Structure formats: C-alpha cells, structure tokens
C-alpha cells in the first residue's frame, strides 16, 4: 500500500512533515471549572476539569497533595464503525491512566493538599491521534481552571511508513499497522513526559521519528500558548477595573 506517493504527498494531501490544522476553544462547558475543545484535523476532543474540590472518597484523600483523576471515553458516534464498546474497556482504562500520569507530572499537586482534581476527556470525533489530542485538550482545560502547573504538556504523534517519517498520523495511516510513536513533552523544561510506541523501529530511525514528533509538540505548544494568552487578555479587559 502506498501511503506517500512519489511526489511526496500523503493520502490526505499533506507533506510528510506537515501537521493537520489545529483549532482550540476555551470555556466550552459552562458548569466546569475549566474546559476546552481541541481539534487536530478531523479529530475533535472535549475536556472538562472539575476542581480542585473536596475529595469524594475520604479513603483516597492525600494529606500532602491533590488527588488527580481522569476519565477518558470514546462514544460510539466518534468512529466510523458504530461498534458497541462496553464502558471501562481496556483501551479506555489504559488511555485514562496515560493521561492521568502525564497531567499529574505537570500539576503542582502539593499546593492543593486534601483536594481532588477530576479531568474528563471525551472524543467527539476520532481520526487518529486521539491520545495526543486528549492530552492537549486536558492541558488547555487545566490552564483554564487556574490550576498551577509546572509547564504546559503538549503531545503529538509521528509514524514511519514507506520508509518515510510522517508527522501526526491520521486514522487511515494509523491503521496501516506501522510504528506509531506518541510523544508528550514539557516545552519550557524541554523534557519528555510521555513516550509510547506500537510496533518496532530500528534505533536510528526511532530517533528521527521521536525528533519529528517533538517538533510537532513544540508547534502545538506555540499554538496553545497563543490561545491561552488571547483568552487571558480577553478576560482581563472585559473585567475592567
């Protein structure tokens, strides 16, 4: 199967090193403390953050830091085939865990002891890279909720098909079965917080692909930063003095 044609164009018209169109919106859930919608091409994810609030289950309360919880869900309507998936299946439990760990690494949890932060992410439309989109949406929602963070976490995926490194795989490319590397970074600290890969890659190619995904993360970080700054300015000038 040809995923990159001889002119170097991918199936959806992108160049190998090109990302899909990004779009983000803050404050989409009225009742939540923070919320955001993040789109990467046709992938669309909504995230809502509640808290820090009183811990619901007292036995889980931590006396020196906040408890971070995350729930990921992917409704039937988000994918092409409307297969009925039971809630709490392996895939969503795993992604919930991944998102929770990634976000927990950047939230300054020690500032909010004896409280709980709930992150709910839902995939509204899936077209590859849902994991990355979820993390990006969760970052935006956390920043909107005014939760102190070390840094923004941004994520992007990259793959390797037809002996070409490809940035930001779509569902079509993802289902080709080739290697798919999802990277999450803290752009300011320049650290990697998430690195996942299906399939195998030779080490020298792997480095290239990770480098590519990291570049993608940085591009996402720039965009998220812009959106947040615009939102903050707008809130400030509207409030007046």
């Amino acid at each position, binding site marked *: 199967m040809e995923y990159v044609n001889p002119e170097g164009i991918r199936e959806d018209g992108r160049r190998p090193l090109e990302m899909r169109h990004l779009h983000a919106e803050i404050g989409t859930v009225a009742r939540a403390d923070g919320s955001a919608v993040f789109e990467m091409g046709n992938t669309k994810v909504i995230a809502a953050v509640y808290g820090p*609030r009183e811990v619901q289950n007292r036995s889980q309360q931590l006396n020196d830091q906040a408890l971070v919880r995350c729930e990921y869900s992917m409704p039937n309507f988000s994918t092409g085939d409307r297969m009925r998936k039971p809630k709490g299946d392996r895939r969503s439990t795993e992604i919930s865990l991944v998102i929770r760990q990634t976000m927990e690494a950047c939230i300054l949890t020690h500032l909010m002891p004896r*409280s709980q932060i709930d992150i709910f992410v839902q995939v509204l439309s899936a077209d590859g890279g849902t994991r990355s989109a979820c993390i990006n949406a969760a970052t935006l929602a956390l920043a909107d909720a005014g939760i102190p963070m070390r840094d923004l976490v941004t994520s992007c995926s990259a793959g390797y098909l037809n002996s070409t490194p490809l940035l930001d795989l779509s569902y079509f490319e993802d289902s080709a079965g080739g290697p798919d590397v999802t990277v999450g970074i803290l752009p300011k600290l320049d650290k990697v917080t998430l690195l996942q890969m299906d399939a195998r890659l030779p080490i020298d190619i792997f480095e290239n692909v990770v480098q590519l995904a990291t570049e993608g993360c940085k591009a996402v970080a720039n965009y998220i930063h812009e959106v947040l700054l615009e939102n*903050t300015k707008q809130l400030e000038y*509207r409030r*007046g003095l």
Partner: protein
Amino acid sequence: MRGIQLSLNQTQRLRLQTALELLETLSSKASLNASVTVADTIPVNYEDGVLKGHGTTELDGEVVATVCGVVERVNKLVYVRALRARYKPEIGDIIVGRVIEVAPKRWRLEINFIQDAVLMLSSMTLPDGIQRRRTAVDELNMRSIFEENDVVCAEVRGFQHDGSLHLQARSQKYGKLERGQLLTIPPYLVKRRKQHFHHLEEYGVDLIIGCNGFIWVGEHVEAKDDMVVDDQVNKSEQHSSKSKSWTSLEEQEQAYTHAETRQNICRIANAVRVLSTLGFNVTLDVIMETVYLSSSSNVEIHEMLGAEFCVLVAESEAERRSSSAKRKG
C-alpha cells in the same frame, strides 16, 4: 468566546464586537502587557532579591508563571493574579454557601473553595442570642438551624493548622437565607469591598455579593431577632393547641412573597447573569445600572437573557467606562 452562546444576528454581532473592541482599547495597556500564561517567563529587572509570590516558580534563576493571569508587582514581591480559578479565601471575607452536610458540632458548606468550609456550632450565634456553652441538646437541634441544601451567609474566620477553612456567623446579619435566588459567578468578577450586604429599598430586595462568587438576591428581611419571636410562638404553641391555627395563618402570611418583589428579584438576578456571561465586573453600581437599563428600555424579565439585551449591556458598559476614563484623564 466564553459563555456567550447567543444567537446574534448580523447587526447584533457587529455591535457587540465594536463594544468589546472599545473595552479593549479602554483597558490600560500596561495591564494587557502584564498578562502571562502557564510557563511564561516573567521579566524581572533587578536580578536578585525578588520575592516570588503565588502563581510563580523558579526555573534556572528565572521567575516563571504557573497559572494564566496578570502579573502584579508590590515592591520586591512578584506574583500572578489568576483570573479563572476557585475562590481564595481571606480572613473576614463575607461569603454565601450551601450546606452539604450536618456533621457532629459542625456544618459543612460548599463555597467554591478547594475544600468544603466548616461552620462550627460554637462559632455562630444561636437563635436565642444568649452567650453560653453549646450543650448536647443544641447539637441535636442543629438541623432546626440549618439543614442540608440551605443557603447560608457567613464570614471567613480563619484557617486551621490542617488547612481547612473555618467560618463564623456571630451576628444577626449572618445566617440562613430564604426566599430568593442564589447565583454563582466566577469569583474573579467580585471585588472585595467594605460593604457586601446591600438593601435595595426601592425594590424591597436584599443583595449579598459573596466574595466567593455566590450572589444572593432575596426578599428583604429586617435584621431583627425574628428567631426569638418564633421561639416564643413555638412556646405558646406548646401551651395551647388553639393558637396553632392562628400561627400557621400568620406563618403563611410571613412566608408569602409578593409578586412584585418576586419580579424584582428575578430582574436583579437576570442582570447579574447577563453581567457574568459577558465577564464584566459585578458590583452594586453596575448591577443597578443594568437593572435601570432593562426597566427603562422596557425589556421583559425573560428577555433580559436574550441576545439584544446582552448587546445593550455591553454597549452601555463600554460607554460607562469610556466616560469614567475621560473624567479621570
């Protein structure tokens, strides 16, 4: 745009845009440039001796913001004032909260803080108004004072060593709030003032602007000891069953809120709702101006949440701020 999901037509959209742009130009340039987001470096001129306040952290000798907000500088202290965040209590704040649990010797209140606040039985005046030790009987009768889901007004007393927040209600002006509406707005829209209790005489309405972003609009109650009267009534009730029917009639009359007052409550509440969806500062002056605007332009109460009135409020706010800026300048 946050919160504004109105179906505006073309002209309304344009008008709202111009009003908001005017607001943007009016707000001081300095404050706009001071906006930061997470992980932005805050420029500090003098290299050492900077005190890092809330919302900042240190990274490689630089001061870095950890929240989105506005940088504030007080002498050597540099901190970031977060805009959208949960309520940060300060001692002496007047807050409105909702009782969520009656626990031994205390009530737990939801006040939009990172934890539930605690109102101890011993830190509130009992209905009889006598200073005394709280007995086991008082503890058993706690539900007769506040029940679950009651709306309560109180004052921030302080933090315990374990970080929990304690409240007090040692005055007749605090206590249960009845016959009105509770509105929740983001706390950053409320500014701390000397006065948070307002009695709007022309409407017969009480307005309590809680520092935690909970706003109470309710029928005016005299700050008299009506609980004491109730108590006496209850006693006489025990004495004779004859007076019972009389009490219930009187109680009914007391519990009745006139239609006009109800409408006033709704009007004021809707004014607050419009202001909070637009993200404008919520103060008594602005609320009253919005109420006047609605009644002078014959806007029905239910139409106040519509697109047209929203645009009107934005325009009048822009005008107000520009005129006040001129007066200053």
